[in-house]
């Protein structure tokens, strides 16, 4: 089968797959769904009706209220406990430290400009306190004495190496080399 024939078959197949006429009443059905002449053509997008607006406003109010309540009921961060006495505990007082706002002066003495104030932050300092009575009543046992440690002196032994005996080397006998004689066939 030639390429042209195959190409032609593809074209035919595609055309046949789409060879369906739209229904004759398509226009009529579309026109039925359009607003009648003279009436206002609906704008694109959605139109908010009065009940819809009321519903939307109520939903927005509920969301806002929920957010406010959630914000108010957020748990206050507790200061960490760093020390405890028997039954007295002084709650830590937050101390507020405000960073200095430095002033910048220009060398020429022109108007002073102020930088943006740094962020104010709070530090929590925890502390414990004892009354004088509590301090006096506390008994601290004396420390045990430690017996002195005796260490023996390190003894130094003399090391006497054993005598080393070296055996004399064997004498090497003279090597006798016989003169080479050429093989008989090389003559």
């Amino acid at each position, binding site marked *: 089968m030639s390429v042209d024939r*195959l190409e032609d*078959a593809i074209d035919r197949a595609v055309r046949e797959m789409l*060879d369906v006429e739209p229904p004759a009443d398509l226009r009529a*059905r579309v*026109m039925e769904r359009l607003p009648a002449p003279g009436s206002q053509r*609906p704008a694109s997008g959605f139109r908010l009706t009065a009940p819809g607006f009321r519903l939307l406003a109520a939903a927005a109010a509920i969301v806002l209220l929920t957010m406010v309540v959630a914000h108010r009921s957020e748990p206050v961060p507790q200061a960490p406990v760093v020390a405890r006495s028997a039954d007295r505990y002084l709650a830590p007082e937050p101390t507020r430290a405000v960073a200095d706002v430095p002033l910048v002066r220009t060398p020429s003495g022109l108007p002073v400009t102020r930088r943006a104030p740094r962020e104010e932050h709070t530090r929590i300092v925890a502390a414990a306190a004892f009354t004088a009575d509590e301090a006096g009543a506390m008994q601290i046992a004396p420390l045990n004495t430690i017996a002195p440690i005796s260490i023996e002196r390190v003894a130094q032994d003399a090391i006497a190496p054993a005598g080393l005996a070296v055996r004399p080397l064997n004498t090497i006998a003279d090597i006798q080399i016989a003169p080479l004689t050429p093989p008989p066939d090389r003559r």
Partner: protein
Amino acid sequence: MPAQPSIDRVTEAVHPDDLALVRRAQAGDTEAFGMLVERHRRAVFRAALAAVRSPADADEVAQDAFVTAFRKLDGFRGEASFKTWLLAIAWRKAIDRRKSVTRWMQRIVAPTFASDGGAELDPMERLAAGGPTHEQDLMTADLQRRLAPLIAALPKKLRDALLLAGSGDHGYDEIGQMLGIPVGTVKWRVSEARRMLRKKMTAMGYER
């Protein structure tokens, strides 16, 4: 002596162009929009059919597309042709429809392409028109019967381009604007679809 109306003006009055009809429809003339529907219903329906494969679905898509186009008519600025603008709306609707899982399942269970039961031509008419012989007819029919499922099984992007281009209703420019891709990409997709089909047919024994 009063000036005679030009031929163009007379033609315009009898067959107003799309833009004139759009302007009238924008002013609230639904009858003008009805003329636009009549003029483009075939192209819109076939574009939808290329995407959704079912004539019933394509009919619904076409209907929705026309109603949506009427609602959005104020947004039509005339930068592209009305037909291209309308086809882009129809294509988006068709793709939305195709994405529906339910529709997919229905389609898998009962494929409803036209090739499964297309209208038969009268054999006498074919003979009079100098059509192919009976043997050729059988071969072609067999080939097309085998091609239809292969086309349906192509990757969607390739199949869409092939069907839209093969319908004869749309130019490459129009298809490019409908699909939102450059014309070169449309041409490549059509060519690639054909190459894949040729390869499959060759593998099936239809030697080149």
